[in-house]
C-alpha cells in the first residue's frame, strides 16, 4: 500500500528526505 501527500506551502518549504530512504511514522518530512 501507499500514502500520497499533496499540499500547498510557501516557496521556502523544504523536504528533509532522500528518495529511497526508510522513514517511520512521526519522523520529520519537511518544514519551512
Amino acid at each position, binding site marked *: 500500500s501507499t500514502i500520497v501527500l499533496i*499540499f*500547498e506551502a510557501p516557496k521556502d518549504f523544504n523536504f*528533509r528526505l532522500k528518495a529511497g530512504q526508510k522513514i517511520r511514522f512521526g519522523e520529520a518530512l519537511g518544514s519551512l
Partner: protein
Amino acid sequence: FHTAPVRSLFLLRPVPILLATGGGYAGYRQYEKYRDRKLEKLGLEIPPKLASRWEVSLYKSVPTRLLSRACGRLNQVELPYWLRRPVYSLYIWTFGVNMTEAAVEDLHHYRNLSELFRRKLKPQARPVCGLHCVTSPSDGKILTFGQVKNSEVEQVKGVTYSLESFLGPRAFTEDLPFPPASSFRNQLVTREGNELYHCVIYLAPGDYHCFHSPTDWTIAHRRHFPGSLMSVNPGMARWIKELFCHNERVVLTGDWKHGFFSLTAVGATNVGSIRIHFDRELHTNSPRYSKGSYNDLSFVTHANKEGILMRKGEPLGEFNLG
C-alpha cells in the same frame, strides 16, 4: 513425423512452441538488461520502460480484488492456540516485522493474521517530531517527493500521473465567485506565492500499517475511488504509468495553516481495505463497483463548519488485509 499417431502430434506441438516463445522473450529481456547496463556505463540516462496498454489491460484483467477478498477471509480464520507462534513467526521472519515495538509482543494474543497485521505500537515507539510542521504519516519507504510541476505528479523518478485523475475534480464547498483557475494545479493552490508539493510513501508488507495525521489540519472532504488492486511496490510504480489512478484509493482533502492539504491512502493487492477512523460510511474493496466512479462525503456540517480537526500524529486510519 509421418508415422507418429495423431494424438502425439497434438501433444508435441504446444510444448516446443511454449519453450521457443518463452525462451525468446526471456532472451530478449536479458538483452535489454545488457544494453541498459552498457548505456549506464556510458553515463546515458535510460528512460523508464513503461508497460504498454495491452500489458496494463492484461494485468488489470487479473481478478486482484477477488484474490484480495479471498486472502482477507483466509487471514481472518482464527488459528488454534498452538499454531499461532509458528505461523506468525514465519510471517515475521519473511517480512522483517519488528515485534519488540508492538504494544502486545505475545504472539498468542493475536487470534489471526489479520489482527497481527493491524497491530498497534507501544506509545513511545514512535515519538512525533515537534520541530517540523510536516511529519511522516506512516512507516515506509520514500518513493519520491518534491514540487508538483504543471499538473503531473511523479509516482517514482521519471514516471508521472495526472493530478486531476488522481484527486478527481475539485469539490468546492461554496460557489466560487470567480471562474476556476486555468490549470488544475492552480485550482489547488489558494494563496499567492505558494507552491504545490507531494510525497509518496510505500508501505512494505511487514511495516506497521496504521497511518496518522502528518500535520495540524482540518479534513473537510473524503472521496473514495473504487478501483483495481494492482501491486504498488516500487518496481510496479516504475513500470505502470498512472498506477495510483488505477488503484482503489481514499482521498482526504482539507486545509492547513498554508492552504490546501490532502492525504491519499492507495490500496494494493494484499491490502485491499482502507479504514478511516471517523468515517463509518466508507466501505472499500466491495465486490461491485462501476468503473471510473467515486463516492464523496463532506465532513463540513452546519454544526461543524470547518470539518474534522486533526493534530499532527493523531491516529487517522489503517490498511487491512483483504
